[in-house]
């Protein structure tokens, strides 16, 4: 499903280049719920951005759902992403001038997957699924954080992508709400989607099939549901 081979990411900076990711090699099968953890600045967001095709690696190859992400140009990458990846952000990132339902319909519009009437039906079904169908016609600003994140998840599901990536989706929510949102993501994983999620909170990792721990841009450890450590350090 997702394969990373010797992936590095270097940020140019004012006092020399900074290597945010250093020779990462990873492989997740389809349907897994992957949690990426690590200290602040360890490179979690960088990694997930690379997987989502939001950013490009400085070195190495990334293959997602069989597509070598690095070979696509910006526009084709965008369409590919729209169809194959659902992205959930920490700050929800709903478009403020569109209603919740319209936000959910937008990816179907850009990727031309459904015509408006069908898109609306699908949006309502998705909102039903995440439990906020009654908020469909409100603007994002009038929803609570948890409700907004549910809407964002519904939007991520709009084009029925096989992969959901989420960067600290619960980071902005209280623990009670966070749990509900997390349960939603777990449910998706159970329903067959691959979910890759960055998180800070250790106790949330109990749901994960796999936990990847980053430290200074390298994989510090990797454990699967059976609690056995796959590797301590990254491959040379």
């Amino acid at each position: 499903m997702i394969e990373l081979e010797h992936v590095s990411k270097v940020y140019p900076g004012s006092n020399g280049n900074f290597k945010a990711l250093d020779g990462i090699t990873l492989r997740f099968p389809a349907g897994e719920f992957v949690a990426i953890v690590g200290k602040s600045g360890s490179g979690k967001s960088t990694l997930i951005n690379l997987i989502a095709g939001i950013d490009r690696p400085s070195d190495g190859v990334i293959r997602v759902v069989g597509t070598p992400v690095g070979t696509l140009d910006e526009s084709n990458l965008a369409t590919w992403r729209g169809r194959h990846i659902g992205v959930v952000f920490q700050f929800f990132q709903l478009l403020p001038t569109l209603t919740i339902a319209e936000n959910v319909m937008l990816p179907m519009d850009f990727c031309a997957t459904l015509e408006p009437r069908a898109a609306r039906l699908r949006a309502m079904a998705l909102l039903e699924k995440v439990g906020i169908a009654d908020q469909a016609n409100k603007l994002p600003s009038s929803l609570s954080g948890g409700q907004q994140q549910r809407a964002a998840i519904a939007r991520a599901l709009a084009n029925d992508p096989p992969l959901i990536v989420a960067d600290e989706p619960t980071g902005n929510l209280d623990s009670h709400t966070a749990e509900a949102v997390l349960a939603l993501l777990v449910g998706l994983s159970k329903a067959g989607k691959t979910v890759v999620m960055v998180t800070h909170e250790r106790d949330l990792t109990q749901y994960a099939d796999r936990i990847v721990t980053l430290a200074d841009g390298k994989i510090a450890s990797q454990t699967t549901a059976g609690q056995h450590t796959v590797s301590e350090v990254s491959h040379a």
Partner: protein
Amino acid sequence: MSLHKTHSIPSIRWLKLARDLMAEKGRILLMLTAITVSIIAIGAVLGSYAVLTREIAANYLGTNPASATLELEGDVDARIVKLARQHPQVREAEARDVILARAKVGEDWRSLLLFVIDDFAAMRISTFAPIQGAWPPATGEMLIERTATSMLEATVGGHVLVKTAHGTAREVTIAGLVHDPGLAPASQERTGYGYISRATLSTLGERPLLHELRITVRDPQASIQGVESVASNLARSLTDQGIAVHEIRVPPPRQHPHQRQLVTILFMMLAFSVMALVLSGILVSGSLAAMLVRQVREIGIMKTIGARTRQIFGMYALMVASIGIMAVVLAIPLGWLGTQILTKAIAGLLNFNLTDAAVPTWVFAVQAFAGGVVPLLVAAIPIARASRMSVRQALDHYGVSPDSLRWRTAKLPRPARNALRRPTRLALTVALLAAGGAMFMTALNVSAGWDRNIAKVYETRHYDVEVRFHEAQGSPVAERIRALPGVKSVEAWGYSPAAFAKPGQINVVRTYPDRGHASFSVMGPPADTRLIGFPVLAGRWLQPTDTEGVVLNHAAAAQVPQIRIGDRIDLSLDGKPASRRLVGIVEEIGSSAVAYVTDQAFARIVGTQVGAQGSARLLRIATHANSPQGRIDVIRTIEQRLSDDGVSVETAVPLAELRTAMADHIVILTRALLTMAVVMATVGTLGLASTMGVSVVERTREFAVMKTVGATPRRIIVLLIAEALFIGALSWIIALILAVPLTGLVDTLVGRLGFVAPLPFIMSPVAALGWLALLGGVSLVSTILPANRAARMSVARALVAL
């Protein structure tokens, strides 16, 4: 998991676009207003140009104006007309005469141009149309031009007392009104226009002779030289048959007397309108770039969820296009309305009937192009930049960041530093304001220069009335006038219509048949005249010993551009040749071309003597009166005296009339300039308002941060206002500097047209300070309104606002 792939109408992103437009109402309104105003201006100017060019054809050319007029010594009888018609290059010929008479209006005498028509039923050249009353007029009656009713204070059925050079005053009945598009409106020329038959001319005490042979040439596209050569050729063949030709008058072909003024004014207005559009373009691009800054995060999100660059570009391009389309939809009818108002005003100026005020489609097409394409063109770059941004860049983007400038501006005061944080936008705003301000000031400066020039009419002339006689008078006339109560001083001058002579040829002048436009004369004032004092442009004024010298006014000098001080000039005074040496050129505002020689020299040329025998064709008289009514009273006394003495007066023109005539000629210009000033002010201040709105909104987050560290909203607003004032002041200084060459340019352009000389250069303090005040006001309003909103916003909301 089988989603149907369809390519139906996209909907949600257009919805988003519409909502964003609504959310940015204020800024959109600014852009819309700026574009709309400039397209209205462009439409009105182009529309007027199109309509008026067509109307000139329908009105002026419809009268079949004479290509040339040959002034004969004797009567133009049927035989001569027939001879002329037989000339191979002549299409039509007709006998006419124009007589300068006077009409009594109330207690005063006014000038009356009498057009003597050979046969009202068979006019072919310089025709006019009856609009009311009799046609043709019976003997003892006259028709008058429709615009002359106010000058004569009489209309159909009324009577006017008319006096010609040789006759006694006689009541003439006004039998009807005509419309003569070949003449400027009577009130502008301060004269009445009447049309009479030969027989009526006879009853007015003149010999029933018509001296003008008016012709049109065969070649409808003939140039002025072409017409001259046909006319000269005809004159030679007439001379060969013993018919003496005195003078040939060739006005600019196919051109209404006021056409050049008109075209220049429209051209100038067009230049201003196009500039306004360019400035609006800058404004749109600046505002849009600012709007896009706020949209960058959303662009990043849209790209994340699958939007392609092309889709994003399309969205924002459509946004701009829809603003343009709205502008066009508004501007087309309003531009049409502007055209109607402007053409009506100009038609009045030209004494035209608007036969067809329909605006041709190409004008609307130009407007649509200007509104539809120009904003897109200028917006393309910021839109392309924003939509091409990678997702990562877009998601990371924070409003204000370029730090490279900061260290260099560290020593500047805070508002300047804030303004400099976005150097491109600052440059655009300042450029927009400076250009707008410069044009605003220029419009008002030129208007002030024009007023100044008109004031010169009084400053350089120290007499109150000019009396011209039909025949030269001796000095006793002047003595008797001098003795009258209320008269301060009198000077007796020689005066004669004249031409620059070409040796061995019949004189050709460029005068219109109304005798006023583009005329040339020689005057002989006493060398030590105290009643005029024109600024000397080159050489010097006349001296008593100048028997051989001549001074030209600038309008005359312009007709012989290659001439230098010391050169010889060949003049012809009513057929009498005179060769003189140029000693000086003076600036004489508000006069047609004049050559000055001393009264002694003048007398020598025309073969009389100064003094008892008389060579004075005009008196210039200063009075003690200091009110208009007082002057009129003195003028009445003078007229009475001259009448009692049996002296035949050709014209008596109070100086105030000259000024009225000049002011009337250019109200349209002044209004056009003021309109343009308003357009520029609108676009310029909208630009400032838009920039300040953007600055405020962009710094919402920063306000919140400042508030959390204890800065009060008031302090923040004060800072913002200071920033707006800084931008305003900076642009004002640049505008002031730019206005100098621009004013000079327009002064030259407009002055050449109106006075044959550049207007005096004036930087109007009212314009400069007015613009400064306007900037200050707009700075305050456009900052305080959004800043208040921003400052009141809660810290939490402000922090997520961007």
